[in-house]
Structures are given as C-alpha cells and as structure tokens.
C-alpha cells in the first residue's frame, strides 16, 4: 500500500506527499496483518461495499464485520450504560412541580400573536388527472396576411464575385512587390557598379600618384646621391688643397731654414778645419809637431841637464853640509871644489 505513495522533497525543500486514492481497508482495531492481499483497488462500480441507489430512506445495514463476541458485548454494555445514563439524567432533572389538586396544567401561549396549535393538520385531498393523450391534429399552415409590396431580387452570375475586379489588388500587390524588389536589386547593382567604378578611378589615381611618389623618391635619392658625391668630391678637393698648402708652407719654411745652411755649413766646416791649405796643413801636421817634438826633446835635454846639474849641486851641497857638519867633529876636511 505504501508502494504507490510518493513523498519527496521539493526543489524548495518543502515536503510533498502524494498517493493514489484507495478505499480504506476494513481491519479490526487492534489488528493482525491481513492474511491475504485483498483486492484493494478494484473497480468502485463493482465494489459491494459501495451503496447503490437512493440512500434517503435506506436502512443502514450494519457492516459485515464478523461479529466479534467481545465487540458485541462491549456494544451491549455501551447501550446499557447509555440507557442507564438517560434514566439517571431524567431522574435528576427537576421538572415542573405537579399540579395542585383539582387543577390542571395547561400550556398557554404568551406571545403577541397567538397561533393555533393543533395536532390535526388541516389537509385537503385534491386529485387531478390528465386526459389520455390524444393525437395532436395537424397544425394549419400559417399564412400571414399579406402586407407591403412584393419585391423580387435575383443575383446574376457576375455580380457577387467579379474575378477581374477582385484580382486587381492582388495583382497590384504581387506585381508591385516584384517590380519593387527587382528595382531595388537593380539599384543595388548599379550602386555597387558605381562604387566599383569609383574605386577603380581612385585606384588609378592612386597608382599614378604612387608612380609620382616613386619618381620623386628616385629623384630625391638621385639628388642625395649626387649631393653626397659632390660633397665628397668637394671634400677631396679641399683636402688636396690643404695638402698642397701644407706642402708649400713646408717647402717655404724649409727653404728659409736651409737658406743659410750653406754658408753655415761652410763656416762650420771651415771652422772645423775641413778646408785647408795643403801646404799649411802639411806644415802644421808634419813640420810643426816635429818641430815641437824636437823642441821638446831639446828642452828635455836641457831640463835633464839642468836637473842633473841640480842633483849634482844638491849632492854637492849635501856633501858640503855633511862636510861642514863633520868639521865640527873633523875640522880638517878639505873642501871639495
């Protein structure tokens, strides 16, 4: 039974439960599980438990529970107790006191508007009965009285729907749209063609300008090259000129420097004795040294002689001295002279 029921958590987390509708199973209150699986979900139309027909005046049949003795006893007990309770209640209820002797209690109405109370209900019987059905006679043809004028009308063949007239707007739309579309396409194509022509014209101009640019570039290049060459040439020229000037300056200076070189050279050479009179030179080189040497020699001889003389004199003097000294000891010394 629980197999058909679904209980699940929703996306929001709320709990839902659903199960197929099923009739309640008849079970005792304190129950054992049912022995066999009853046909719980049979067709309600063929279920014997379901009451059929008019239920207004039906005698309520007690349920088909197998009479449980404990159950019946209990119910009898309940009934008895209910009766006892009722009796007890009636006993303790205080009703109106009994009427005094010779009097009688009568119910009286005390409302404003009295009404008649009686048990007898005024009833009248009325009967009626319909006649048996007779065949209905044929209704007479209803012909209303003629009023007004007779007017006729008839729709001819071409009047409701004239194809040519009707088709005109359709045709207009169709043809119009087609022509419009084709005109648009043609215009687009023409626009494209004119765009392309413009593009081409522009491109040609551009090519021409490009050629001009190239030419000018070439020109520039040639000019700069030319300029470069000329400048280089000029530099060369300048350099050469400078070299030449330097050379000239150097040459002048040298000339000037060397101008009195020659006399100086000669002077110095002369000073150094490179120019000589040969005889003089000869005399100088040969004769004079010899002469000097000879002179030297002779002088030397003289000196030697003088020295010898000096020595002799010295010796003599010495000896005399000694001789003079000795005479103090030997006074009789002959003077050697």
């Amino acid at each position, binding site marked *: 039974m629980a197999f058909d029921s679904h209980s699940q958590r929703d996306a929001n987390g709320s709990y839902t439960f659903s199960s197929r509708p099923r009739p309640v199973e008849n079970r005792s209150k304190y129950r054992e599980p049912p022995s066999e699986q009853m046909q719980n979900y049979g067709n309600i139309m063929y279920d014997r438990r379901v009451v059929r027909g008019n239920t207004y005046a039906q005698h309520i049949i007690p349920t088909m529970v197998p009479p449980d003795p404990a159950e019946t006893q209990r119910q009898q007990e309940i009934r008895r107790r209910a009766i006892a309770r009722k009796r007890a209640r009636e006993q303790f209820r205080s009703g109106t006191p009994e009427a005094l002797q010779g009097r009688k209690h009568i119910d009286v109405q005390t409302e404003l508007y009295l009404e008649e109370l009686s048990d007898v209900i005024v009833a009248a019987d009325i009967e009626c009965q319909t006649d048996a059905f007779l065949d209905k006679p044929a209704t007479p043809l209803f012909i209303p009285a003629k009023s007004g004028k007779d007017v006729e009308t008839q729709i001819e063949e071409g009047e409701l729907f004239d194809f040519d007239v009707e088709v005109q707007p359709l045709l207009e739309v169709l043809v119009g749209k087609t022509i419009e579309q084709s005109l648009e396409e043609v215009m687009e194509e023409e626009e494209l063609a004119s765009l392309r022509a413009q593009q081409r*014209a522009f491109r040609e*101009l551009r090519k*021409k300008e*490009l*050629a*001009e640019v190239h*030419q000018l*570039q070439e*020109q520039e290049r040639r000019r700069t090259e030319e300029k470069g060459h000329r400048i280089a040439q000029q530099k060369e020229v300048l350099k050469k000129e400078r070299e030449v000037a330097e050379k000239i300056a150097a040459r002048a200076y040298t000339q000037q420097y060397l101008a009195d070189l020659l006399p100086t050279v000669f002077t110095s050479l002369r000073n150094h004795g490179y120019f000589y009179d040969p005889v003089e030179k000869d005399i100088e080189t040969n004769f004079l040294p010899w002469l000097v040497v000879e002179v030297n020699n002779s002088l030397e001889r003289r000196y030697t002689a003088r020295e010898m003389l000096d020595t002799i004199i010295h010796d003599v003097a010495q000896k005399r001295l000694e001789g003079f000294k000795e005479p103090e000891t030997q006074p009789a010394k002959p003077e050697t002279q």
Partner: protein
Amino acid sequence: MAASLIDPSRAPVAFGRRAVPQLFEELQQRPEAARRQRALNSLCDLMHDPERVYQTVTGGFLEQVKVLFQDEDADVRTKTCDLLHVLTSHSVGRQALLSSSLLPPLSQLLDDPSSSCRRSVHRVLKRLTLLPAGADALLTLVPKLMLKLRQEKEEEEVQALILSTLSSCSYQDPRPALANDGVSLLGHILSHRSTNIRRRRPSLMALSVCRDGKEQVCEQNLLPVLVGLLQDEDLEVQVNAVGVIMFTVTITTGKQQCLDLDVLPVLLDFVPKKKEEEEEQDEERRRRRKALVLYSLRALAALAEAPGGRHLLLEQLPVLEARTESEEDQDIRRSAQSAIHVITWTP
C-alpha cells in the same frame, strides 16, 4: 506535399527562421548525394539574403561545411564551394570565413580532381581577396597558386581567376610573389593569346610597385613585350601596359631601356586629345581613357628626368601645353602641368 517539390532540384525550405538550421540538420544526417545537392542548392538560394548569411555565420554552421568538404561526391563539393562563394559576397561572411579555420581545407581542395570544384574554389578565393585581411590571409597560398599557374593545365577562366587573386594579394604584399619568381611567370603569360588573360596584368603592375619588381622587370627584358602590348586594341591591356611602364621608368635602368626602345612617340600618341575621345559616350570608356592619359603623362614626366628624354620632350612641349589648356578635368591638367614642370626644369 507536391507543392513543396515544385522545383525538383531544390530541397523544401522551412519557413522563417527555421529555414537555414533545418537545411543544415538535413545535411548533417548524411542522406544520399542527390538530396544533399538539393539541400545545398536551396542553401545557395537562401544565402543571397544578408539576414540569412548572418544567421548562418552566428549559428556556427560553418563547421559542417568543413565536413562537406571531404564529401566523396564531386558535385557536392562544388556546391559547397558555391555556397561559400555566395557567403563571401557579404562582409560578415568573409570575416567569418577568415576567422574560422576553413582556409586550410579549402586550400586542400585546390588539388581536387574535379575541375568545376577547383573553379569554384578559385572563385571563393578571389572574392575573399576583396577584403584586405583576406588578402593577408591568402598570402601564404600565393606560392601554391603560382605553381598552379605555371602548370598551365587549367582552363582560361580558372587562370583568369588565379591571376585576379594573385594581383589582389600582391597589392597587399608583393614579396611572396616576387620570391617565387612571379615576374618571369607573368611575363610568360603576357604573350598569351587571350585578351582575358592579358587583362589580368594588374598583377604585374602590383609587382612592379615594389622596387625589386622593377629591377626584375628590367632584367628580364619584359619591356619590349610591354611596348608591343601598347599597340593592342583592348583598352584595358593598354592601360595596364602603360601602368607597368610608368612604374618601371622610375628607376634609372628602366629609363634607359625605355628610351632605347623608343617608347616616347607611342606615349605621346596617347596624350593629345583625340576627336573620338570627345565623342565618347560611354562613361566607362571615358574613364579608362582618362587612366591611359594619366599614366602616359606620368611616364613621360619620369622619362623627362633622363637627359635624352628631356631633349626629345622639349621638342614636343607644345603638345603637352595644348593638353593643359583645353582640359577640364583637374587631374589630367595637374599631371600635364607637372610633366611640363619636369621637362622645363633647369638646374
């Protein structure tokens, strides 16, 4: 039910906002090839509407397109590329394509065996380069594209597409193309028969904008070919040839070569106002003529820097002066004046 299959080549489309998602879901379930093609057809039709493009892009359906790239049926792949082609016609689609990682698988499809698929891929790439960011992103593909061009087994239309893509990329950044020897390749293509191909010479002009490109142009002796192209009947080709010359004569070698080739008379021929120019009714042709005149004037001004050129042009001075006076258009007048200025410059 019969009403929704009015067009048997298209899958039924749901109403309103449901249309695009429902078609993509159908594709995701991998039905058979025919149904996939129909669904893709309907999608292509729907994508013309910018609102749907936006819906596709923001709904993240581009991942599925990647799956469809590996589909085994060639038509389905072609149709997917067509779908992308329509998608890139709108800026939102282009940006989404760039920011999603669809470019590598798309570039793998370049080697697809089916030629129509390759053509669609090239169309997508060409459209993508309309956006500068797209051109940047495609720079890495440039070597591969050049390889394709070199192989020359593609049809003309594809070659034209590849050249357009390359030119847009080269405007962004010419270095990859130059590194891959672009100039010689394009010079080879110059002598191609078809006018269509020769028209795509803006790529050469783009390359010559960069200095190395100019030098390469001179080295590889493309100038004679260009001068020959000056005599071409088609106005576009003439304009482009003059454009390349205009860029090449800014460097000295270019000047020398041009003078050697005696370009001056030809250019001078373009300058004076011809009678048919005045009668020119077509706006378009008038504009192209104007470009021609502008470029020629510029090239003349550049050539006037060289002494030989100046000498020749001094004789032709009256022509230029005539042009200056009679011209209402500001740009032409200005360029003529600057040309005269250069010619009459004395140190």
